[in-house]
């Protein structure tokens, strides 16, 4: 099976007074896994439902391999979907659930049973064919739902937060498996999620949506290292806003002078955006900073350090070092020598008010 190219062109959809999609333009390349990432209410699910045919855009069109499918009814679209909530038919066992679509298309029973068994094996559940949904765990149900979505060999696979109802461990295994399957089948896949870690770890490209508009679409590394907008910088990973002085293509921040990445703002005073892992802290009794909070996360510990001038900086240190950075420890703070992003100065107080978008 080959993936199709999917294009959203100027998609608009409003529900009453809320605008879910505000002119979304996005192209998904054949065979790629694109994650639609954004906070709740950003329109990511609406975009997916427009593609599946459960919502109709007020304006704009959706093209699959160049063909306009905006007005095609949901049951005649070539897209398999896995839903957020458990969606298996409770009256059918796993095998019949998987073969439902084939039954609609009047595939002979023997053939569709063989195919269903093949798909159940593909999702790692060869022996659950006779079980009913209520006899399966949440993870197994979503696997069967994935097999069901793949049964008709669709050219687009739509995943609407399929992992959000599962517990953390199952979520990680299943997302790796989805990715493995997607790569081996080469099917164009759109994955809606609000979990940035999920998006960054699975996707070929990540599209960040905000208020129904596309903020940035890029591969995970670019998105993380070079966020196009402050919103993306905040939403994907944690970000420090440090006051800096720009001169030419260099910026002075925390006493260091670093090259500016991309465009430098017009004003001299600017915010320098630095990831917590690019902040170096060393215990130093002469140091300017004091560790306020240390939260241990296993492989790393995230420190909140207050500097002499009152600025607060988030810094990640290796987990095994966390003992050296107990709250109250005096530390010296530096930055990794590499180009930094600079944005125009945000309003006073805004930097402190930015919530830390934690890994879910």
């Amino acid at each position: 099976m080959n993936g199709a190219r999917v294009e959203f062109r100027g998609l608009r959809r409003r529900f009453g007074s809320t605008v879910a999609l505000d002119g979304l333009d996005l192209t998904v390349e054949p065979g790629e896994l694109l994650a639609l990432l954004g906070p709740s209410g950003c329109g990511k699910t609406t975009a997916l439902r427009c593609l599946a045919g459960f919502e109709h855009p007020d304006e704009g069109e959706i093209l699959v391999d160049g063909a306009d499918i905006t007005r095609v009814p949901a049951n005649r679209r070539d897209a398999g979907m896995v839903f957020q909530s458990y969606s298996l038919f409770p009256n059918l066992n796993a095998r019949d659930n998987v073969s439902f679509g084939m039954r609609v298309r009047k595939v002979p029973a023997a053939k569709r049973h063989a195919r269903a068994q093949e798909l159940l094996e593909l999702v790692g559940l060869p022996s659950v064919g006779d079980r009913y949904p209520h006899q399966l765990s949440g993870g197994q149900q979503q696997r069967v739902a994935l097999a069901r979505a793949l049964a008709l060999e669709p050219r687009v696979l739509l995943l609407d937060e399929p992992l959000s109802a599962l517990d953390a461990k199952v979520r990680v295994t299943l997302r790796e498996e989805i990715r493995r399957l997607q790569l081996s089948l080469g099917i164009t896949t759109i994955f809606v999620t609000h979990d940035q870690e999920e998006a960054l770890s699975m996707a070929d490209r990540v599209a960040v949506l905000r208020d129904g508009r596309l903020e940035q679409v890029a591969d995970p590394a670019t998105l993380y290292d070079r966020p196009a907008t402050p919103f993306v910088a905040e939403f994907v990973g944690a970000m420090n806003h440090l006051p800096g002085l720009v001169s030419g293509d260099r910026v002075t921040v925390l006493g260091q002078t670093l090259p500016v990445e991309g465009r430098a703002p017009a004003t001299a005073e600017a915010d320098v955006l630095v990831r917590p892992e690019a902040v170096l802290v060393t215990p130093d009794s002469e140091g300017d900073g004091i560790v306020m909070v240390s939260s241990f996360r296993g492989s790393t510990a995230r420190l909140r350090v207050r500097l002499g001038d009152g600025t607060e900086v988030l810094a990640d240190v290796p987990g095994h070092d966390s003992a050296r950075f107990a709250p109250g420890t005096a530390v010296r703070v530096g930055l990794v020598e590499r180009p930094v992003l600079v944005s125009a100065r945000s309003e006073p107080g805004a930097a402190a008010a930015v919530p830390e978008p934690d890994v879910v």
Partner: protein
Amino acid sequence: MASLTPQVTTPAGSAPARGGRPRRPRVWRGVVLVIAAVYFLVPLIASFVFTVKAPNQGFSLDAYGKIFSAEGFGGSLLLSLGLGIATIVLVLLLTLPAAVAVRLGAPRLRPVLEVVCTLPLVVPPITFVAGISTVLRWGPDYLASTPFYQTIIAVQNPDFPVVLVLAYVVLALPFAYRSLDAGLGAIDVRTLSEAARNLGASWPHVLLRVIIPNMRSAMASASFLTLALVLGEFTIARLLSFETFPNWIYRISGSQAQVSVAVSVFSLLITWLLLLALSSAGARQRSGV
């Protein structure tokens, strides 16, 4: 010491109470059961005794034997069952798609539908039948040859009075709608139908293959309530002069009191059997899922 005393007496005092607490509800349970049993069983036993007591010979099942040979028994029972089945089919055909459509397409209309479907409970049957008979009697002579008039005549055919089916559908609406709505509430209609649509199913297919199979017990209870209503409805059939089963019992009670009571006991038995069959059908579906 003063502070110690209550500490000592509290556990001592509460121990017998704790022991007695479970026993007291059990006693009350028994009392409630006995009262309920007396309330329901005494009339039944009295009816039964009345039917089997012959004036001179003591015990006799003659009255039950006479049921089947009594004139009009088979016809009226079949008529009532036929009306019941027709009503069930029609009320399900009306309410199920409506309830599904409202849930999927216009959730805001749900309270409206609920009120509309509950209205028949508020209107007394006597008002209802007065309206119906007025409509049926209306029709000036010059309309006699029109299809409209023919229709009015046809729905009053005493062999199968369609007008009763229409009236019973209205009466059954509250029960049918409540059962179906509860059944729809138990499944995620939206996600299930979207999943089915996504797999290529048309709307009729979604309804037949996805929603109805998952609504079997709700539909069984809607059907049973409707059937029980039709088998017991007296006012409307009586005032429109159709001889349904309850009306036949009423008529025969004038001439053969014993047989009419025997029929009542017998019809109660039939109703119970139907209830048992329907609820076991529902249970089988539930355990099969």
